[in-house]
Structures are given as C-alpha cells and as structure tokens.
C-alpha cells in the first residue's frame, strides 16, 4: 500500500464534499463580487466620515465678522469691533482682512480688475476660536450694543448642512455594506441548498457510515466557507488594487479624497474573514434545515 488516507488541510470533514461543482464556484464568485463592492462601500463610508470631520473641524474653528459702515466711519467701527473681540473669552485671535485679500475673494466673480477701493465694501474680520470656543449669542448682543454695523457669521448655517450631508452619505455607505452582507448571506444560503441537493449521494453515504448531522453539516460548511474566503480575498485584493491605481488629485475635493488613508488601508482586510463568517453561519443554518427536512 503506497498511501493511507489523508484527511488533512481543510479538516477531515471538508474534503468529503467534492471541491468541484458549480455551487462551489458560484459561492466563490459571489463572495468575490460582494467583497469588491464592500471595499468601495467601505471606502465611501470612511471618506465621508473623514470629510464630515474635516468640514466640521475647519468651519467650527473659525468665524467671520462683517463690519458695515459709511466709509468715514468704517475704520473706527472696525477698531471698536477688534477691541470687543480682544476682550471676548474664547477668541484666540482676530485678523482684519486686507483689501488685496478681499479683492482675491471677489476675483472669481468679478475678475481681477475690480476697483475694490471705490466700492462700499464691508470690512471682514477673521476670528480664530480658542479650543473652548466663544459664546456667539453673547457676542452678538455686545456687538449690537457697541457696533451696530457688525454682523457675526459663525458658519453654523454653512456647517450644519454640510456635516449632515456627509453624515448621511456615511450612513448610506454603511447601509450599503449591510445590504452587501445580507445579499451575500442570501446567495450563499441558496448555494448551500443547491450544494446539498447536488451532493445527496454524499449525504447518503455519510448517513450509511453513521455520521451525525453535525458532521455532515460541517463537511458542507467547511467546503463553502473556504470557497467564500478565497473569493472574498480575491475580491478584496482587486478592490484595493483599484483604489491603489486611482489617480491622486489632492485631498480637498470629495471625489479626489475617496479612498483609504494610513491605517484605513487595513480596514478592508476585515472583509474576507467577515465574508467567511457570513458563509459559515448561512451554510450551517441551510445545512441543518435541509438535513432535518429530508429525514
């Protein structure tokens, strides 16, 4: 005798179900496709989360104060406002924008030759907040009393919808991840059902030699879980490769910021084991259901 039985590698149960067959291939392909989509959904979720944080942080740490007054009074009004800000708790620093900076702000709309000096433009004061922030309501009341032409814009009306939009996007991305997981579980459950039906002879032989349901189920679970793991690993690898090959165009825009950064590249590595776990649970449930039904 040249060789004795070797039920190793996959585990003794796993080798009992033939590796070939369209259900095993279907499981692997489904897992690969779902893992590929999951990589994109995960990237969208992480990117939108980072974007929401970035927008929130950027806008939350600054405010703008607009001083409107007749040309003869605007310098005095600005000085009053700056003094008010200097004594306001929570204001780290203030800076009155120069005429050139205001021209640069208006240039996209009016072109480079705009005679800013001849316009009755308000003066803009940039406020940088201290970490604890300032009280915008209190500041508005004080400005109304001492500098009626000054209007505080703490960016709330801009910040809130942007952050909400980014948060919604992140929520949708997580819903997509969940739907992908559910779809994958459903597909693998169907594949498990087909596999059990196609391997009725295997089940018959195992019953004949005294195998319990748990062993038979484990044989199918091992086979399909391995297929799902291999497929999901391949799908994740292709998805990560696609992101790695995406052109980098800076990180200020949303679409150009779509992808993984730093340790974020490690996040998709959770997809293959999660896919295998989904396959394991789905196949086990399907196997026991079929085995109970057929006896």
């Amino acid at each position, binding site marked *: *005798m040249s*060789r*004795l039985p070797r039920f190793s590698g996959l585990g003794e149960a796993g080798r*009992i179900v033939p590796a070939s067959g369209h259900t095993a291939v279907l499981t692997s392909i489904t897992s690969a496709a779902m893992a590929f989509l999951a990589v994109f959904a995960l990237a969208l979720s992480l990117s939108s989360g980072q974007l929401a944080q970035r927008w929130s942080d950027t806008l939350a740490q600054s405010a703008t104060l607009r001083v409107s007054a007749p040309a003869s009074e605007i310098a005095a009004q600005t000085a009053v406002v700056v003094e008010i800000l200097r004594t306001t708790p929570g204001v780290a620093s203030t800076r009155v924008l120069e005429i050139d900076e205001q021209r640069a702000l208006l240039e996209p709309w009016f072109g480079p030759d705009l005679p800013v000096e001849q316009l009755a433009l308000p003066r803009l004061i940039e406020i940088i907040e201290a970490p604890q922030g300032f009280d915008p309501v209190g500041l508005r009341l004080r400005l109304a009393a001492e500098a009626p032409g000054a209007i505080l814009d703490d960016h709330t009306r801009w910040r809130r919808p942007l952050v909400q939009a980014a948060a919604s996007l992140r929520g949708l991305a997580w819903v997509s991840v969940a739907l992908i997981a559910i779809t994958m579980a459903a597909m693998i459950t169907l594949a498990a059902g087909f596999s059990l039906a196609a391997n009725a*002879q295997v089940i018959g032989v*195992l019953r004949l030699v*005294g195998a319990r*349901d748990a062993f038979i189920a484990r044989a199918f679970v091992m086979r399909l879980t391995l297929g799902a793991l291999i497929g999901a690993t391949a799908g994740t690898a292709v998805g990560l490769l696609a992101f790695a090959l995406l052109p980098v165009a800076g990180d200020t825009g949303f679409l150009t910021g779509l992808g993984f950064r730093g340790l974020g590249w490690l996040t998709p590595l959770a997809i293959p084991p999660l896919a295998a776990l989904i396959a394991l649970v789905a196949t086990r449930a399907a196997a026991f259901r079929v085995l109970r039904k057929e006896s």
Partner: protein
Amino acid sequence: MIRLTNVSHDYGGSGLLSRVDLHIAPGAFYFLTGPSGAGKSTLLKLCYGELRQRSGDIALFGQDLATLSRDALADTRRRIGVIHQDCRFLDHLTLAENVALPFVATGRPVPEADLRELLTWVGLQHRADALPPTLSGGERQRAALARAVIMSPEVVLADEPTGNVDWEMSQRLLSLLVELNRMGTAVMIATHDLTLIRAAKSAVSARILRISDHTLQAAGSDLS
C-alpha cells in the same frame, strides 16, 4: 440485536411488507431471498433505520427505533455494517479513504495498521490509492465489505453483494462474510442467487428467509 415485530411497510401503494417478524441474533447467519421487487432491500433498510416502518415495532440493540433521536440513530448505525449492491462510494476519495470513512465520520483517528490489515484481508492492499470509478465490480464489492466492517460492527447487512460480480468473485466474497461470521459478527445477505446459498451450506449454518406474498417465511427446506 435487531428485532422487527409485526412490521408493515409500503411506498404509498399496495403493501410491500406485511406483518413481518424478524430477530437477528448475535452471531447468526441469514440469507434473505425472494424475487426482485419482493421487498428484500426494503427489509434491510428497515433493519438499519434508513426507512421508517408504516406500522409495527423495530428495536435496534434494545432501543425502539421510533424513539431514537437523529444522533442516537447515527450512533446505532455505527454498530451495523451495510453493503449495497451499488457500493455507494465517494468517487473523489481514494479506496483507502472510502474504507476509512466510518472513522472519519465519527471523528476518530484512522487506525492505519487496522486499515492495512483490512485491505490485505479483502485483497485490495495494492489498490489503496485507486479512485472508485477505476475499480472492477469485484474490487468495489470487496472495498464495500471492508468499509462495512472497519468499525467492527455487530451485524453486517449485505444487499445483493454478489449481484455485479462473476461466480468466482461471489465465492470469494461469500467466504469473507463467512469468515466474518465465524469471528462473531451476525450476517444477513439479501440475494436472489440460490446457487450462492447452496454453495454456502457446507461452510456455514445459515437460516434462510424468503419474502413471499408480502410476508417473511422460513425457507430452509425448499433449498436443500
């Protein structure tokens, strides 16, 4: 060991087996005869719990089949070796792996020395690596016998084990089953081959049962 009391069975049409009483005792040797379609295979399946009877009682090793849990039935089947005419192998596993399957299915390590000895006993030690589709009819039957006895069952049920082999091979299979019986294993062979039964008379003291008119009858005198 296996006791059927007033057992009837059918497949939804007219009755196939009616009020069958059978007791397979330890160390006994039985031939089960009858024409094709009489219910021999059905009776064997009832004996190892693959089929559930329509009425009557079946007890396997003192346990009522009707009350056995699924796991308990699986455990009970390990005490019964079954040989089918079509052998029922897993074609992607080697002969040795198929023979060792009962150990694998019960989560026990395969005793390599016992496996070697068993394959030598059935004359298949040189075919251990062969896949079932490449085996001849006689080799398949001997491999099925090896698989049926590897767990040292208390009873072996063989359904037409010589149906696909020539006379010489059927004699060899019979001698293996007789040898097994001499070691204390109860054997029941379902066959319609009366010459096989006659050939066994000189080697073993066997009871001969016949299914006729849906009932089980002792038929020893008819064959002498």
